[in-house]
């Protein structure tokens, strides 16, 4: 009886919680399995993927959360765009190809650079040690060691959880439970610290938007001049 009431109370409490909009970024080296993971979460077959050299996003509902996940290209030549999305992200999903031992050093450097960024430090990170289905894939503990993960996340005050998983073994309801578990962990951490994160993100995105708007206006003005000049040339 007591537990029934407690359940009811919990339910009521949750029901009264406001809907929270949360943006996450999905990053990691090219070929790590980010797009496959995102597709799986969205309930689409993760088979038909092309390398991302750009941006796409998915929206999903999870409890009281409206979650948007940005899937960003991980190739060396496109990684430079990541930083533009840091300000608005509440948390990071970092996908690692656990079977690609040769690129662990590059992975480590990339992650280090990411966590060091002032717009990222202090935010929670979920590491997906992907491709566990592959032979020779590093186990969780080995990935932690290869990336010096403990040191990295302590240094930058990022709460961190690592989940060994495979993005291709199932999708939608049959998605790898570890991916689901990791995502729930990330949202749980975000919820716990929501107000502070919200404030930080409001501040950072307001600044970024203002800078973008100004840049946009300035460019429009420069281009207007160029167009005028070429117009004058004709006459």
């Amino acid at each position, binding site marked *: 009886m007591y537990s029934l009431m407690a359940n009811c109370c919990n339910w009521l409490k949750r029901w009264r919680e406001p809907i929270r909009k949360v943006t996450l970024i999905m990053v990691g080296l090219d070929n790590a399995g980010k797009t496959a993971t995102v597709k799986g979460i969205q309930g689409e077959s993760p088979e038909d*993927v092309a390398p991302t050299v750009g941006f796409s996003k998915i929206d999903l509902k999870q409890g009281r959360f409206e979650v948007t996940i940005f899937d960003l290209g991980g190739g060396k030549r496109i990684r430079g765009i990541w930083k533009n999305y840091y300000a608005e992200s509440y948390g990071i999903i970092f996908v690692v190809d656990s079977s690609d031992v040769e690129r662990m050093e590059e992975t480590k450097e990339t992650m280090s650079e990411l966590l060091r960024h002032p717009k990222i430090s202090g935010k929670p990170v979920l590491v997906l040690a992907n491709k566990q289905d592959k032979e020779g894939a590093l186990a969780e503990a080995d990935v932690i060691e290869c990336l010096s993960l403990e040191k990295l996340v302590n240094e930058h005050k990022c709460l961190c959880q690592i989940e060994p998983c495979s993005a291709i073994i199932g999708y939608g309801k049959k998605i790898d439970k570890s991916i689901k578990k990791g995502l729930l962990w990330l949202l749980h951490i975000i919820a716990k610290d929501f107000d502070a994160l919200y404030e930080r993100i409001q501040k950072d995105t307001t600044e970024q938007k203002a800078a973008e708007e100004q840049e946009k206006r300035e460019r429009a003005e420069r281009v207007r001049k160029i167009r005028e000049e070429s117009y004058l040339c004709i006459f």
Partner: protein
Amino acid sequence: MGEVQKGLLSVIQKLKGSEEQELRIVLLGLDNAGKTTLLKRLASEEVNTITPTQGFNIKSVHSHGFKLNVWDIGGQRAIRTYWKKYLGSTDMLIYVIDSADQKRFEETGQELSELVEDENLTSVPLLVFANKQDLATASSAADIAEGLNLHTYRDRPWQIQACSALSGEGVQDGMNWICSQITSRKK
């Protein structure tokens, strides 16, 4: 799969057997960006009806389940208003830029940003072909993405594909991305 250049055919094959009525692609870019060369690459002999539309410099490719409209956007500001009628129910936007013409990055970026504001193009996926990568002075995809402020386009998926319409390199990769977007859209 290891196939040679298939261009639009791969997309057509993808569409076969699907419910999709017609896929409407609009291909745009400043003059000299390489649209015509690219079009020739995309529309191999199977798609051979490239008909210039009278009045303005618009070319159309029709095929089963396919409609591709191509036109220049530079120097034709006067006919802008006519574009609208070609933008209706667009499924995919391909924007071509000359990666070696750094002087015009801002201009082409401005054109693109004005274009995507059109309500017909709301949340339409955008493929940017960073063309002329065979030239030594070509900028990288990331630099171009930065130059075009692509990160401010958050309402649609976008992809920047380095390519050389001349050699054909990268063109099929771009079409593969379009294919992957079609499946996503179909659900």
